[in-house]
């Protein structure tokens, strides 16, 4: 009974979404407050019904209701409860429901946290969010119903969740990633609303900034978690494969990064408005493209949902409607009058413009590399794939260039910057980063041009950021006072940039100085990787909840001193009979040691993968620092102060009238 009820609530939320898309919009266009007042209740109602549907699906998983096809395909009674819970989004239908839940959640969040925005703006933003909801609710109801039943032959037990996904990483990775993907729909909705009512101004930019930043922070976390998960779970020890689905998440991230910076210029200086709107549309379209790439089954990828052409066609249609409709609106409504704001060729505006240019170039490269195989196969130019070297070769110089530009841009001023001033400021970063890069080369024992460029760029960003912090915090009342005086959004920026520096440093050192050895080892054998001695002590057995594992024992020593013992596992999952590698990892800030037990070879021998990965943690820590920066930035008092002062202005006529009304009442 419950699953059918879930489907009914989804249909109800679709009806509410349709009302949400139409009623407040009509109200805002005709100036009828009574219709606009529906926006918030409708957004709330939509969220409530989607949440009920999600809860019902979750219940079906937790009580092992295998009459629901999706549960039967993705769960098993042997799984521990937390994997049953995360299995809700382990397949296509459930993850789509999670996506919709997040969309409804973001819509509700806009409804709650926009009390101080003009009601016309709120109505239009919520209406646009409603339109997006319609698309996805139709998608789930028409092509991917998670509540489909297998009746009357209910299977006795489920087919189990793909063992790769039975992991902590999967519990958190998709929700965070979707928070990011879907969060960009808010920036999109603000852009569309601004186009509809022609209010492309600093206020619009200020309203969309925190939403964009928080979505970006979630996406950063989601991508980093995915990379971390691939590192320890796939057993290859890699952290980024330029896999099409990874690229699909990177594309909106790059566009979102550009959007954040462009929004800053639009808010502070009132320029780049049309470009910012276009970026907001692009970012959300790339999120949709990502959904299409992942869910249509058109790609050869580590991530896959079982292919179904109707789903692909539907999502492609959704993407086409979004792009065509918003670009048409853009063509008619984008500001044609050029703002007469002047800025010099070394101004902060120009640096941020260049940031956008480089980011767009990087985005286009990734996009071409990801989509070209699809286009080639569609036009029957042959089945091609674009190899990793393409991405490494083209993305690395851009990343280095973005870093170098960023370091210089930190010291630039709005309107114009004196060239000599900038050059003097950059002396320290230049000197220190050269020394650091050279020192890293010596410490790692070998000059590698890309490692040098990467470390140089990372150190340049870090030194410039700290120098800027130092200069700004100079105060007559002491350093501590100066540091406290800086705003949260400034610290957000500092962390964002430091995080980027960490990611660049980690990526260049780990990929250039990482050592990987694949070899055949028998118990008792030893091997040396990166100065560490790995001794294969033996293999034991272990019984898990739904798997049996062979556990290797590797004793690691450095110069004869004991470092750690690693226990890589080779698990056989009972239900599907799949074999999974569970790597043994000794994590560290400076280096990771990684041992994976692959297949048995010959008598008593094992294929073993031993890796030494310097600075690899910096990649994920850097992304974490970036995300913390994002969350810090939106906690800035500025957003609240301006909002309250704006509300005071708006409310003052009412409050004054009520204050004049009160004595009269009292008198009566």
């Amino acid at each position: 009974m419950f699953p059918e009820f879930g489907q009914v609530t989804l249909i109800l939320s679709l009806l509410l979404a349709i009302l949400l898309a139409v009623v407040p919009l009509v109200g805002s266009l005709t100036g009828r407050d009574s219709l606009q007042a529906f926006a918030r209740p409708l957004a709330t109602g939509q969220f409530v019904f989607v949440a009920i549907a999600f809860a019902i699906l979750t219940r079906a998983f937790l009580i092992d209701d295998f009459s629901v096809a999706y549960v039967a395909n993705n769960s098993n009674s042997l799984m521990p409860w937390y994997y049953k819970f995360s299995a809700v989004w382990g397949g296509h239908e459930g993850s789509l429901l999670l996506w919709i839940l997040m969309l409804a959640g973001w819509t509700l969040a806009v409804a709650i946290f926009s009390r101080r925005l003009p009601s016309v703006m709120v109505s239009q933003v919520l209406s646009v969010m409603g339109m997006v909801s319609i698309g996805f609710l139709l998608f789930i109801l028409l092509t991917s119903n998670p509540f489909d039943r297998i009746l009357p032959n209910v299977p006795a037990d489920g087919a189990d969740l793909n063992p790769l996904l039975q992991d902590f990483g999967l519990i958190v990775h998709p929700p965070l990633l979707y928070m990011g993907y879907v969060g960009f729909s808010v920036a999109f909705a603000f852009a569309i609303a601004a186009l509809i009512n022609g209010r492309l101004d600093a206020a619009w930019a200020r309203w969309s900034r925190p939403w964009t930043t928080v979505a970006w922070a979630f996406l950063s976390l989601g991508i980093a978690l995915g990379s971390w998960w691939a590192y320890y779970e796939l057993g290859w020890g890699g952290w980024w494969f330029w896999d099409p689905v990874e690229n699909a998440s990177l594309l909106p991230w790059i566009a979102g990064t550009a959007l954040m910076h462009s929004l800053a210029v639009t808010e502070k200086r009132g320029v780049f408005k049309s470009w910012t709107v276009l970026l907001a549309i692009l970012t959300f379209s790339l999120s949709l493209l990502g959904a299409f790439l992942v869910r249509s089954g058109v790609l050869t990828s580590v991530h896959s949902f079982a292919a179904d052409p109707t789903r692909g066609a539907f999502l492609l249609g959704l993407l086409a409607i979004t792009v065509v409709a918003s670009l048409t609106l853009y063509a008619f409504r984008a500001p044609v009058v050029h703002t007469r704001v002047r800025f010099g060729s070394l101004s902060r505006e120009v640096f941020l413009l260049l940031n956008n240019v480089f980011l767009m170039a990087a985005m286009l490269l990734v996009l071409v590399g990801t989509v070209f195989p699809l286009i080639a196969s569609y036009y029957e130019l042959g089945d091609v794939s674009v190899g990793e070297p393409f991405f490494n070769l083209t993305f690395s110089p851009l990343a280095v260039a973005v870093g170098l530009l960023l370091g210089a841009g930190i010291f630039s001023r709005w309107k114009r910057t004196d060239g000599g001033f900038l050059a003097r400021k950059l002396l320290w970063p230049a000197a220190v980063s050269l020394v650091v890069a050279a020192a890293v080369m010596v410490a790692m024992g070998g000059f590698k041009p890309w490692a040098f460029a990467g470390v140089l760029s990372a150190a340049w960003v870090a030194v410039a950021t700290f120098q800027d912090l130092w200069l700004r915090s100079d105060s007559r009342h002491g350093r501590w006072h100066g540091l406290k005086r800086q705003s949260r959004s400034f610290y957000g920026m500092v962390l964002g940039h430091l995080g980027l520096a960490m990611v660049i440093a980690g990526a260049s050192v780990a990929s250039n100085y990482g050592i990987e050895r694949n070899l055949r080892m028998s118990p008792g054998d030893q091997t040396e990787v990166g100065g560490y001695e790995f001794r294969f002590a033996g293999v034991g057995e272990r019984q898990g909840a739904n798997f049996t594992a062979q556990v290797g024992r590797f004793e690691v020593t450095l110069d004869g001193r004991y470092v750690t013992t690693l226990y890589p596992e080779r698990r056989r999952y009972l239900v599907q009979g799949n074999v999974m590698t569970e790597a043994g990892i000794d994590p560290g800030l400076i280096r990771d040691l990684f041992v994976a037990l692959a297949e048995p070879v010959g008598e008593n021998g094992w294929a073993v993968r031993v890796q030494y990965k310097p600075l690899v943690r910096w990649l994920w820590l850097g992304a974490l620092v970036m995300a913390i920066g994002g969350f810090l930035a939106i906690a800035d008092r500025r957003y609240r102060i301006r909002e309250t002062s704006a509300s005071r202005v708006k409310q003052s006529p009412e409050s004054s009238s009520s204050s004049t009304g009160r004595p009269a009442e009292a008198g009566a």
Partner: protein
Amino acid sequence: MNPARKRKLSIILFLLAGLAIAVGLATYAFRQNINLFYDPSQIAGGEAPVDVRIRAGGMVEEGSVRRDPDSLKVEFRVTDYASSVTVMYEGILPDLFAEGQGVVATGHLNGEGRFMAEQVLAKHDEQYMPPEVSKALEKASARAEEQGAKELPNY
């Protein structure tokens, strides 16, 4: 030319130069790294180039996997059930590599018609099949049917 225009022009020229460099770099890298896919029938028919990085794939032939007992060298045959090609690989095979499963390998064809693989990808769950492999199998079976149809009048 007034200074404002001059400035704009210089910005535009700068952007164009950057764009040209990016496009040049990208096309260069792109040409180097496009790997065409060939199925076993195409390789057996001599359509695939020798010593060029390509991808090949199909099903791992039953009973064809031979491992070297002392190293990680492995040899197996990949088939589309019409033709097959020998693949040589040294390294760790993916967890889900098994006889009778679909694989896609990246590498090059040597002079003796053997495929020297640098990387082997297997499917990673029960329902999934690399699209290239399923296409190759479809093509092979379609060809077989066609031949069957041609041969039919003889009977």
